């Protein structure tokens, strides 16, 4: 197999290039893309990428794999490779720092803008706040986000307006708190979202749903927010 990796080391490269490596796949088992990268890095330590948990929960190693955003540690080579070629590029739409490492600042800023923390003005009880199983179920499919940015960097609306449109990951987290029966800041949250860009630049392209390595559905969350905003406006 040929592995083609996007390389850019600002210390020495004036512009990005693709570097090709030959890789012998084992016959007896499939590998994850991250294992291929780790083995290549053992030979060429200069290849730059982020990784940590290697089991799809920390969200470090989001990258563009043969044209699809995904986690390197969770993407089997057999599913990604086309015509015996594995092509690895950084997540699109964010500035590249080096090789497969992008500057995530804009992504994190949008996350922070939705105030991703529980707000509850009532006095704290001595024990936990009660929440019914039905209310807790409303958080399923929302709280599991790992902030890998695969969704947001696959979204054309984010590419066009990365500073104004919050992007699918931030909006999923926004809805995670809107949907939480323990949160009392619904009105404030909605009023901060009520402009033409923050939410409404979503055009329903649904790249986010395809890209999410945790099988979450940001488009559905965005539609829920739209509904709340429209209800709130009438």
């Amino acid at each position: 197999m040929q592995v083609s990796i996007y390389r850019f080391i600002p210390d020495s490269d004036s512009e990005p290039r693709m570097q090709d490596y030959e890789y012998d796949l084992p016959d007896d088992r499939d590998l994850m893309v991250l294992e291929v990268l780790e083995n290549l890095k053992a030979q060429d330590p200069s290849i730059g990428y982020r990784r940590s948990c290697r089991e799809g929960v920390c969200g470090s190693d989001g990258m563009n794999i043969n044209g699809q955003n995904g986690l390197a540690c969770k993407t089997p080579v057999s599913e990604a490779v086309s015509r015996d070629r594995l092509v690895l590029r950084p997540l699109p739409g964010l500035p590249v720092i080096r090789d497969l490492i992008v500057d995530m600042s804009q992504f994190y800023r949008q996350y922070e803008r939705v105030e991703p923390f529980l707000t509850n003005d009532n006095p704290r009880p001595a024990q936990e706040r009660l929440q019914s199983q039905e209310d807790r179920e409303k958080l399923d499919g929302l709280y599991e986000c790992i902030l890998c940015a695969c969704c947001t960097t696959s979204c054309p609306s984010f590419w066009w307006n990365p500073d104004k449109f919050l992007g699918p990951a931030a909006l999923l987290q926004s809805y995670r708190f809107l949907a939480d029966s323990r949160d009392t800041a619904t009105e404030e949250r909605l009023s901060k979202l009520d402009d033409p860009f923050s939410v409404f630049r979503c055009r329903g392209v649904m790249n986010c749903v395809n890209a999410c390595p945790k099988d979450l559905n940001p488009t559905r969350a965005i539609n829920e927010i739209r509904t709340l905003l429209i209800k709130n406006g009438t």
Partner: protein
Amino acid sequence: MKNLRTLDFDGLIVGGGGAGLRAGLQLAESGYKTAVLSKVFPTRSHTVSAQGGITCAIASEDPDDDWRWHMYDTVKGSDYIGDQDAIEYMCSVGPQVVYELEHMGLPFSRTETGRIYQRPFGGQSKDFGRGGQASRTCAAEDRTGHALLHTLFQANLKADTTFLNEWFAVDLVRNQDGVIVGVIAIEVETGELVFVRSKVTLLATGGAGRIYDSTTNALTNTGDGVAMALRTGVPVQDIEMWQFHPTGIHGMGILVTEGSRGEGGYLINCDGERFMERYAPTAKDLASRDVVSRSMVIEIDEGRGCGPNKDHVYLKLDHLGTEVLNSRLGGIMELCKTYALVDPAVEPIPVVPTCHYMMGGIATQVSGQALSQDEQSDDVPVPGLYAVGEVACVSVHGANRLGGNSLLDLVVFGRAAGLHIQDVLGQGISQRDASASDLEAALARVARWEESQKGENPAELKAELQALMGSSFSVFRTEQKMQDAISKLEDLRSRIEAAHLTDKSEVFNTARVEALELDNLLEVAEATAIAAEGRRESRGAHARVDFEERDDENWLFHSLYFAEDRSLRKRAVNFAPSTVEPFEPVKREY
């Protein structure tokens, strides 16, 4: 040296996992100038991988539950070298700390009455071991670590904590009075070296499971804090105590939560026999982890392993039904399908004991204050240095940690350290600044790698070290293998000190970070080896073929390892809780 940038803080926390974030939150809310320095963006920390839950007597599943029962279980689990004052503190303060997490928004699973859901975990009992299995582990499905870490990160955003994300701490800076006055760190994105000066430094760098070739730990768990302490002359305690989790996915090392057995799963050998009934007639598959792991290795060694090579056993979950599996163990379902190509609803999961947790670490008081020992074997504080979480050994886990106690440890002692440091800062601290030579000492390692012109490949040396530790210091240990490994480690040390960093670039140089991590792995491996060889008994996770029995007469002690003369000393275990009678050592049976 003139150009070394300096940043100043009241409190510096090194590590952005559960312990670091809980401490950071406490300090940031107190108004002191606080920074959390983390080599990864905080939500990438290894806490995120914790699955089953956080054990705590909140009396949701059982209204009669009592933190003293939790304390009893923890002391017994530790094989009696857990410090009882610390365990008492953790178990009694625990409920309040868990409620705080819930108030911050942690999305716990719920009971029918809307309280926090609790599940059974290994080593748990009611009524001091007399009342049968308890259900004491508070859970957010099987993604509790993820939920906890994100909630704490979010709370820190609310509290406006300063983050130095993707900064790698190289070494502690110690002034001429022996006071820790901060760290030398690399801002990884630019490659710039910075002196991060602080009145107090709290290590929350987590564990070092990557000293082994087969581990559930993240690639980033390289023992940075332990190694920094050892290089600064601070000893580490009970570092021979490594937990092997019974259910790592065979060949992958990926964890399957103990909660899967808590929900009713069990282990079988090649004959389909539920073999834990023979080893632990009462608790069976929910005996504590050291017991289950040893039983599995015996089954495999005696030829009752599964698969073509008979080198693993099976974890059977299919009888639980898809509804329980999907609602309580959704994360496990996903991990097994992705990494073991097994659907647990249909077929059993191949599992083997896999390195999971470092019980040892920097000895500390309940406040997180790091400790050393003077010549009279009395505890002495290391001024300016604190430690919490897996890097610390406070010691609540002793020779064997109970499942669900690590998350509790992180938040209880992260909070305690934050509160204590707040007090200390309030009293005012004055310390001499670091001299040029103090800083040079902390920069030496970076300089060594920068100047390397030839030598072996760090990645290959790392693989060699991991294989050596895996073959010599896993579930069962023998004198000869340990002796051989100690001399091989000496050889590895000279080779690592002569190894070559080929990539000298500045911008986001992960090769440099990994080279520095290799130094750290070596420190932890060597400490482990010497302490394991030195403890001539079997206790908790430390099982020696040549000393099969626990030896309370000689070894009802902590071990304390000093790197500068590679010596092993003893330190007394605390048997003085303040509100309950101490639990005296008895034979441990499940």
